[in-house]
């Protein structure tokens, strides 16, 4: 069957029921999209299917035939998508494993809703991050959307009297 990933057509010989995730990773060889749970719970495998964020672990590859699949590798050239730049600006990733999925979910949110509120972010960003980068993810989405709301990390370095030290 033919499958279009990141604007490139691939002829792949696989079972139609193979999940899209495994066709992308093991057959086409794009490994930025991650396996986390296999049951559409964690979102590590999020890709765009005709522009919609989907959890590729739970979609058969046959469902992608004739549609456009975009993975993290195809989100932008040179990590130039606003969410990628914001992620770098705020040093969002820790281990980084879930971040492809987080970025794809965030990019899809911003395409639909260029100025999301915190509530919009709560509802759209349901992917699991085990390192707990959520505060920075929220701030980075605000930064990418230029909502002016993101606060990111709040860090106080205090001395023995509880006064803010200058070293931070």
């Amino acid at each position, binding site marked *: 069957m033919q499958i279009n990933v990141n604007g490139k057509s691939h002829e792949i010989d696989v079972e139609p029921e193979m999940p899209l995730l495994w066709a992308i990773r*093991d057959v086409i060889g794009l490994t930025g999209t*991650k396996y986390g749970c*296999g049951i559409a719970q964690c979102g590590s495998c999020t890709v765009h299917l005709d522009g919609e964020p989907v959890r590729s672990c739970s979609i058969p590859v046959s469902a992608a035939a004739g549609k456009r699949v975009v993975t993290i590798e195809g989100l932008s050239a040179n990590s130039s998508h606003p969410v990628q730049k914001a992620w770098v600006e705020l*040093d969002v990733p820790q281990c980084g494993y879930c971040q492809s999925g987080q970025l794809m979910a965030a990019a899809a949110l911003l395409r639909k809703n260029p100025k999301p509120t915190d509530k919009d972010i709560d509802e759209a960003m349901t992917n699991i991050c085990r390192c707990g980068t959520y505060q920075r993810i929220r701030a980075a989405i605000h930064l990418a959307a230029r909502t002016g709301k993101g606060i990111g990390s709040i860090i106080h370095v205090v001395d023995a009297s509880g006064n803010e030290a200058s070293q931070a």
Partner: protein
Amino acid sequence: MKKSQRRNTPNLSRRRFIVGSTAAGGGLALGLGIPFGIGSAAAQAADPELGAWVVVKPDDTVVIRIARAEMGQGTHTGLAQLVAEELECDWNKVTIQPITPGQNLARKRVWRNMSTGGSRGIRESQQYVRQGGAAARLMLTQAAAKEWGVPASELAVANGVITHAASGRSTTYGKVAAAASKLPVPEFKGIKLKDPKSWKIAGKPMKRLDTAPKVNGSHPFSIDLRLPGMLHAAVKACPVFGGKLVSFDESAIKSRRGVRGAVRVDDATVAVVADNWWRAKSALDALPIVWDEGPGANQSSATIMEQLKEGLTSTENVFADTNDGDALAAISSAAKKVEATYFTPFVSHACMEPMNCTVKISNDRAEVWMPSQNAEASLAALSAVSGLPLAQCEAYNHGLGGGFGRRGGTQDFVRQAGAIAKQFPGIPVKMLWSREEDQAHDFFRPIGLCRLTAGLDQSGNLTGLHVRLAGQSINAYLAPHNIKDGKDRRQLQGLWKTLNGDAQIGYTVPNMRIEYAMRNTHVPVGPWRGVNTNQNGIYLECFIDEVARAAGKDPLQFRRALMQKHPKHLGVLNAAAEKAGWGKPLPAGIHRGIAQFMGYGSYTAAVAEVSVSKKGEVKVHRMVLATDCGHFVNSATVAAQVEGSVAYGFDSLQSQITIEKGRVAELNFNTYPIARLAQLPKVETVIAPTYDFWGGVGEPTICVTAPAVLNAIYAATGKPVRTLPLKNHGLTLV
């Protein structure tokens, strides 16, 4: 003053990791899954090495060697900052290069310990990596001094430039590196390190060196490795702990597309090997397997609970680690007595990258590509499973997709993959666990039941405290040699009276008895980020709130009175309370809770602001967490760990592994809740350093998260939550 972080911004387009080719770096051909490792021998010879830690290239690029694992905690960046600080190089020219355990072994462990756990990555190696940076600086300046014929003492260095003021000469590190590399490496012992007060790179919120490849999918995780001819394995171990594999019917799946075969892995595990993982996993699901489930199949959460309950009152197999005064007498004669029993369940690590690694074994060589918290332990496991000596083995570590204690000492994944690969000689086999396998065969955070009893005098002073913990022992499962005379002190982490245990109790009580009754189950247990401080923090800190309430005192004031002899514990408690505005009015319906504890050499405290709806929806609005980790290397990374520890600490509130018919019931994220973005509060980090010791950062703040929230729930509802998870009480984190 709030400080949102605007940090020293590096050139974003630059790849800060060096990914070198290795003898088995077949991944290079595909441009994918390149194993981390040092460059080829030829490349090493070409790049001048200045001691083991630093290489300076002719173009002034500085390569800093790293021995510890990076699993997101920022240790690689922090270690590089420490080396660069003493080296006095240009931070923007720094790259990092992880070493391999084979190289470490070949050079008599010049890079020392590679194990990364117990929040030791920075604190345990800071001195020798700084000395490594300083040694390189001395070699470089010596080379310039020799070239110019002047005393090295007349030279100044800054940003990788060496200058001689008297003659107006200057040169760069890159230009003298080749000559410097031929000089002897100075003895570390005599090297004077900089006063941290004068630090310019260390101690500053530098941007992480590993972010760029983590936003475009190019960061090479172990799971992403692709090697020519590689096969894929899916495994299943007997779901009942202690059970055995009897037989399997390979003929039922042998003709499936891509399947190479089903193989016995060990006495409890079977694998299916195929040309891609989905085919292997689908065939495994269809494979008829006969298990001997063994006696464990009769166990359940209910039988385990009975075992723990027995431990609360038993005089068998119990010891008192602290026995000051006569706690039992003080409590029985007290004006007021408070008693409560707390329960914390098993929880799983749930690393987002499931257990995996790739192994290739031929007649005379074995290699593993893995995500490991202890690459040397991986190498040893590979040597054992392959039967080849260490010198014929090599292990290529990758950035871990989460570690949290799961990928350290156990190395079960290397042994399994090795046992499979042995049956496919010369072929690399990538073994990957499904999420269900990962949940079913974790080394869980130990289960525990803890009864606490306190006596108060007429004025509400705490005169006696008796703690009896009945629960499972990590050491008994993983490291029995650490148990001396049947006394496993480790399970009382954070309740130790001595400071040299790195996790000292912060309270002084005249009569105090702290006991542990080891009650082991058939369920595997292991270190879970923060380890036993998590459970012990909940037991002690929630109970102290109950006692404060019984004494009619404010929880903060009550703690302060008990902490006068522990100024560092108290300092952090005060810092958290101050920044949280303890005692100041809150919006209607929002209540505060506070907790403090010590772990991994660092002092921590937290304040949570929480509301509880009539439907039992618990909303955590804001948390302020304070830590005194002594010195700190990067405030932004410390904050990242603190923010992350709130999410991880939420497991203590809402997650649990239960046992049914001897096996795990919660096999995926539909039944095992993990904190999501919407649940997380605004987190503020307070770093309250006293600059007189080196404490850990990755773990210590987790253990105060849950008790601070639980104490806020108590304040909101008037009812203490003593058994977890919250759903036992009709409460849900929203």
